[in-house]
């Protein structure tokens, strides 16, 4: 065609051309060569069917000379422009006869092929060149030659998709091509719970262009049930070259009887697969399950590794799964398990029989498997229950944040606004975001909390940051994180957590103390004397009150008035307590006589830790 294009250009140069947009002597139709559908006029803009790179979509064009003149049809082509005689490489025109003389009413068929070279939207301009005998000119002569005309017939729009690959597998009767989203899944053979069945699949690139290998996955279809299928794509190259193929395998490795379903996903195409696990050997009859620390029970499949998740190395933490091996009552005979073993340095078997064990129908044996990695990294192992084996895996990931310690300065006591500092043993090599939380455990019986114990920034949990190179963590830039100690004896436990690091906790004790009187006010309101006290008792045990009055000269008036207020304080502290050990006490003393002669009062409060006193002058 390149040769033809050159010829066309030379010819147009020789006879002279006109870029005409006046109606040509032709009518154009889309033609069905099977005759099933009638010809339809070719529209000015024609949408070609989406076509994969490497493939071709033909459009048969019927061109009819509808003029009353003889026309020399020179050629048709799809060009990059409406007035261009160059060829668009994504299109070709075939079945064309050059220099076809068409008398009035004659027609010709040819094919416009959309054969994209790259993905994306592609536009081509369908142009025809011709000469028409009119005004005394003649085609085929050089003395009175008819001028050549180049006419834009239609604009062809096409969408080029990625090259298509064909998926097949090798059956006993030969290769079978699979169609995506088929209603009928590909069936693996019934497989013993002690065995596996493997299909080899082939991806073929039948096109003339290289194509990247598509994503091949077995998506999880039930997050609560491990898959009985496993995929191996290690032989699939990154690119499947034109005309070549690549193999991968899907293995059906059931550990539970019954039907198992799966989906083989290749790019956006889904291929349903299924298989049935069956009992063949005696040990297949055993039902195997495991339970994690949260009580979730899982029925494992040999195809899917049993994951112990992620743990932190160097700590006492470990992931533990408890396995049950049951001989169901539907079995007639005991099933003998010759051995239960585990491989892999990070995995430890506990409680399993050390020798062959026969499990009677209806009986179960249990054992635990723990994952305690010695260092950071990924660990794998194998659990073998007789001939039935399971792959084990777990991850151990350690945070690079140096070890943590907490400091609150001086020992804590009640009624403090103190601060806690999070210290690192060395400058942090990384920046990190974590949390500090506080919990309060009262040491007073039947008391569960004190609402005043909280961070001054609000609540009991704050987000903290560590900057790279810093040796202290900070809350909003503050390394001293303020908090209140409340008015209840007990202990405050801070917990500092960063990702992949063991939670660091440290407790600080708030010791019990004698009642503390923060303020005292004495007022004469004849005929009463009012004494108002504010304070707290962090033991919630105040009982005895003592009031000693003095005259204005300082001389004691009578004997101290003793009051057992234990029940009053108990009601305050243990009925809808909203203030911890706080109290405000107002005592009214009715008197007869001149209240102005009373000068001051001394008040004593006694709780389980001792007595405290204060005094106030009457106002």
């Amino acid at each position, binding site marked *: 065609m390149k040769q033809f294009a050159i010829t066309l250009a030379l010819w147009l140069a020789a006879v002279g051309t006109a870029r005409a947009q006046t109606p040509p002597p032709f009518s154009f139709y889309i033609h069905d060569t099977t005759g099933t559908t009638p010809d339809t006029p070719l529209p000015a803009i024609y949408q070609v069917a989406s076509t994969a790179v490497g493939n071709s979509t033909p459009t048969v064009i019927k061109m009819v000379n509808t003029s009353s003149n003889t026309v020399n049809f020179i050629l048709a082509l799809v060009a990059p422009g409406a007035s261009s005689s160059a060829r668009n490489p994504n299109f070709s025109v075939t079945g064309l006869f050059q220099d076809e003389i068409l008398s009035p009413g004659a027609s010709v068929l040819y094919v416009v092929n959309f054969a994209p070279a790259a993905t994306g939207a592609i536009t081509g301009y369908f142009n025809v060149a011709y000469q028409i005998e009119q005004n005394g000119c003649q085609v085929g002569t050089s003395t009175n030659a008819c001028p050549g005309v180049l006419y834009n017939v239609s604009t062809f729009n096409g969408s080029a998709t990625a090259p298509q690959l064909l998926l097949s597998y090798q059956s006993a009767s030969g290769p079978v091509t699979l169609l995506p989203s088929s209603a009928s899944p590909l069936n693996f053979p019934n497989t013993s719970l002690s065995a596996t069945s493997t299909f080899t699949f082939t991806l073929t690139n039948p096109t003339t262009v290289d194509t990247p290998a598509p994503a091949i996955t077995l998506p999880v279809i039930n997050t609560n049930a491990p898959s009985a299928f496993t995929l191996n794509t290690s032989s699939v190259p990154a690119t499947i070259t034109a005309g070549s193929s690549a193999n991968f395998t899907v293995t059906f490795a059931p550990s539970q009887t019954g039907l198992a379903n799966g989906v083989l996903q290749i790019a956006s195409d889904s291929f349903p697969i299924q298989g049935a696990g069956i009992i063949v050997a005696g040990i297949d009859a055993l039902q195997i399950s495991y339970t994690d620390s949260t009580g979730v029970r899982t029925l494992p499949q040999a195809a899917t590794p049993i994951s112990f998740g992620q743990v932190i190395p160097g700590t006492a933490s470990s992931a533990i799964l408890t396995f049950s091996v049951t001989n169901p009552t539907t079995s007639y005979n005991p099933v003998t398990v010759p051995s239960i073993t585990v491989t892999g340095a990070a995995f430890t078997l506990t409680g399993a029989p050390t020798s062959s064990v026969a499990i009677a129908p209806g009986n179960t044996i249990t054992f635990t498997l723990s994952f305690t990695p010695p260092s950071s990294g990924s660990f794998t192992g194998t659990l073998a229950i007789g001939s039935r084996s399971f792959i084990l895996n777990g991850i151990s990931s350690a945070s690079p944040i140096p070890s943590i310690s907490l400091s609150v300065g001086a020992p804590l006591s*009640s*009624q*403090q*606004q103190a601060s806690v500092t999070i210290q690192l043993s060395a400058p942090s090599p990384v920046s990190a975001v974590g949390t500090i939380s506080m919990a309060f455990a009262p040491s007073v019986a039947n008391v569960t909390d004190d*609402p*005043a114990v*909280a*961070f*001054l*920034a*609000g*609540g009991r949990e704050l987000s903290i940051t560590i900057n790279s190179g810093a040796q202290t963590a900070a809350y909003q830039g503050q390394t001293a994180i*303020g908090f*209140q*100690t*409340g*008015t209840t004896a007990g202990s405050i436990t801070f917990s500092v957590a960063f990702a992949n690091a063991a939670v660091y906790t440290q407790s600080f004790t708030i010791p019990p103390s004698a009642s503390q009187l*923060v*303020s005292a006010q004495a007022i004469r309101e004849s005929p009463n004397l009012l004494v108002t006290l*504010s*304070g*707290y008792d962090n033991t919630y045990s105040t009982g005895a*009150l003592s*009031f000693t*009055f003095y*005259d204005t000269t300082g*001389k004691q*008036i*009578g*004997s101290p*008035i003793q*009051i057992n*207020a234990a029940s*009053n*304080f108990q*009601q*305050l502290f243990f009925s809808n307590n*909203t*203030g*911890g050990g*706080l*109290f*405000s*006490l*107002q*005592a*009214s*003393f*009715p*008197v*007869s*006589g*001149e209240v102005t*002669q*009373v000068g001051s009062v001394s008040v004593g409060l006694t709780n389980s830790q001792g007595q405290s006193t204060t005094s106030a002058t009457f106002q």
Partner: protein
Amino acid sequence: MKRRGVEAWAVFFLATVLHAQLSVPQLGFARFADGSVHAIQGVAANLIVSPRAVATANRASFSNAGGLTAKNGLIQLWDASGKQLASYQSDEALPLVNIDSSLQTAIAWLPSSHVLLTWDGTTLVARPLDDAGFEGTVTFVRLESAAIAQFFLVQANSKVAKASVSLPSGRLISSDILPGPHGVLFVQSGWILSQSDEGLVAEMPDGYRQTISLLRNPLLTGDLTIERMSTDWLHVSSQATGASWAIFLSGTKLNVSVMPHTSKGVAR
């Protein structure tokens, strides 16, 4: 006589009844950054902010006897039990309100109309002021007596003036330039509170001055807001940082506690 009196006192005291006389100490009410007003319980260094707001306001002042709040121009007087005693609808977005102690000390200043509101026992009475000799921006107002209102004004030269105005006549009685503080924020129990770069400056009547370093960084001019939580407690807040403090100020005693943030937001 003295001997007889002492002998008589010995039998005058009756047994006290403590039932219903024990409670959690109530410190007052504080207005937070979102305008919500919360009850504050506790003692110094042990403050408990009630989780539920009792009101919302643009300005608030509370004493042990009641409170004065302003919201969208509506000024309301409350008694200690939370009962509304009077209200006054003004056009003032941010009036100055203050109540030192008894309900009779309630006073509000409407700067755009130069009107004072006082409580006559029944209603909030509007008292227009004679503008003569009244120069500067009012930063604090209080009732000096039943008939005299006391203003603190910042004048154009940054000097602070204390002015006394007759309530019956609305005329200026006296005006004095204060030698020390700049930009008076609050007057409490004889103390004058103002702001400096270093923090909150508290000056006693005898001239003794104390600076309370509230923040590590220098304060921005006009950053602090002070509102009365109760007769003896003030709520100081920094608009720039959101930090706030509860200050006990009575007689010669001054005590500063950090105000815990509410769960909804920072105190301001």
